[in-house]
């Protein structure tokens, strides 16, 4: 449904900066009805890719087809089957919910006849039914996001692109939003590509792509990705000199030890091996260890493993207004 072929994008040089390669020969496809998540640290090229996919930027080279249409030659056909949820709100907060929906329907050529049916359909899952006459600026962050999603779903897109749609939401609103999204995606067989930093969001999707510096490092199902690292890992928080402890663990156990923030991780551990290892480490290095634990790897750990660096800064997220 979405086919990206050898996509390269280089930002032109400016006075202060040399040209910057944001995407380097990226090839990726999302099959019809699949839910894919695109993740990567800040500056990995996610946003560039997103801007290209929704038709706001043209790449340096490469091809993208969405729903069988060439995105660069026939953008008008692609726009018709595409729904886009941006990170910053694309609703007019000075207008009411109803006015926003009506305007969006006009943009997509939905006639008066179909409008009320499609609108009710798009609102069915939401908590907006009795807030139609409220201005969007008076709604909470979670509800404002619902307007965003309802608006986009109203046009019945076959392909839905979302750019960090849950940024700025509290955990409960985030779960509601994703729950609704996943349910609708399955019901309608929509193809969904969503960028996200939050790995708990990715556990139940079909495919996860990990990008770094414009390169695709991994693209697979969450299960397959987790299998990249062992099924268990031992996590040691050292007391004192972490490098020294890491070196001595490496030397004496002959295992790969990965530094992650103030933690040392022994990732290549299979089921059942964790506990004996924990005991033997504790016995030998007790005085250098603050805490030690066994952990089931999740996608965040895969991300750390694959990108070889700590989880991207959460603090750099742009906070959404209330």
């Amino acid at each position, binding site marked *: 449904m979405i086919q990206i072929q050898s996509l390269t994008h280089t930002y032109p040089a400016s006075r202060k900066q040399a040209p910057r390669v944001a995407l380097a020969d990226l090839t990726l496809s999302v099959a019809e009805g699949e839910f894919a998540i695109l993740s990567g640290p800040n500056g990995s090229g996610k946003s560039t890719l997103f801007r290209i996919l929704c038709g706001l*930027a043209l790449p340096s080279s490469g091809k993208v087809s969405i729903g069988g249409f060439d995105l660069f030659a026939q953008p008008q056909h692609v726009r018709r089957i595409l729904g886009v949820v941006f990170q910053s709100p694309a609703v007019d907060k000075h207008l009411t919910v109803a006015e926003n929906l009506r305007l969006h329907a006009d943009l997509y050529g939905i006639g008066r006849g179909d409008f009320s049916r499609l609108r009710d359909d798009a609102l069915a899952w939401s908590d907006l039914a009795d807030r139609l006459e409220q201005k969007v600026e008076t709604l909470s962050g979670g509800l404002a996001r619902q307007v965003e999603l309802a608006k986009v779903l109203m046009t019945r897109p076959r392909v839905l692109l979302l750019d960090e749609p849950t940024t700025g939401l509290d955990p409960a609103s985030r779960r509601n939003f994703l729950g609704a999204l996943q349910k609708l995606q399955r019901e309608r067989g929509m193809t969904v590509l969503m960028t996200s930093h939050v790995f708990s969001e990715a556990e139940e999707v079909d495919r996860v792509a990990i990008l770094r510096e414009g390169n695709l490092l991994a693209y697979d199902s969450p299960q397959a990705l987790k299998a990249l690292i062992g099924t268990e890992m031992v996590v040691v928080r050292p007391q004192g000199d972490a490098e020294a402890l890491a070196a001595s663990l490496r030397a004496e156990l002959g295992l790969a030890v990965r530094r992650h923030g103030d933690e040392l991780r022994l990732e290549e551990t299979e089921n059942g091996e964790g506990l004996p290892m924990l005991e033997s480490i504790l016995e030998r290095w007790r005085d250098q260890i603050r805490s030690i634990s066994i952990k089931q790897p999740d996608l965040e750990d895969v991300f750390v493993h694959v990108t070889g660096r700590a989880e991207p800064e959460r603090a750099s997220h742009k906070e959404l207004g209330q």
Partner: protein
Amino acid sequence: MMGVALALAKREFTRFARQPQRVIGAVAQPLMFWLFLGAGMGTSFRPAGLAQVSYFEYFYPGVMVMMLLFASIFACITIIEDRDAGFLQGVLVAPVSRMAIVLGKVFGATAIALVQVLLFTVAAPFLGLTLGGAGAVLLLLGFILTSIGFAGLGFLLAWGMRSTAGFHAIMMVFLMPLWMLSGALFPISGAPGWMNVVMQINPVFHALEIIRAPFYGDGLALLGQRGYLLSLAVVVAWAVLSLLASMMRVSKRELGV
């Protein structure tokens, strides 16, 4: 395309009507300009050849053009706000023609400008100015074309801008002079030679001509005057060109190298 443009224009107007400060500012500011400058200048300066026209009356159509300028330009500032707030990206990814995006803004701006300037037109009888039916139609046409011209130009300038402060600066050094050199404040006949030339090629000068003319001539007779038709043609060309240029600007997607 028109349906989409009208839906977008309706949004502009709704937003305008919901901000009373904007309504008040847009009407009060030119009105004060007119009253204070008109009253002050009228008694101090007496231009040659304008003995029978009070400065109030001379300045009146000029204030109309200023209203159209400000209303259209302020409406275009919302392009920068729309981009900032995120609304614009939602419109850009929608399956709408790029011209509809331009027209939505421009029509919205024109509707806002018309409300203001028509309110101001109510003052005409107090100056002893009268309009026939045909004259009223031509005046309205002049308002609409001028407003489209200003809004199209404003659109073109605002599209690539990231800050409203920058837009204000551009407005002051680029758009205000167009108005100052339009004959709104002083007649072209008294201007020095070089300025006379600049004024003749200034589309706003011609806009002022087609707005001033219906007050002083029979509407139908105007359509037979070469001077009027020339000014009309210049304003139409200005409006069309700025719309086309804006559309091309919107169609351009940012490029990689």
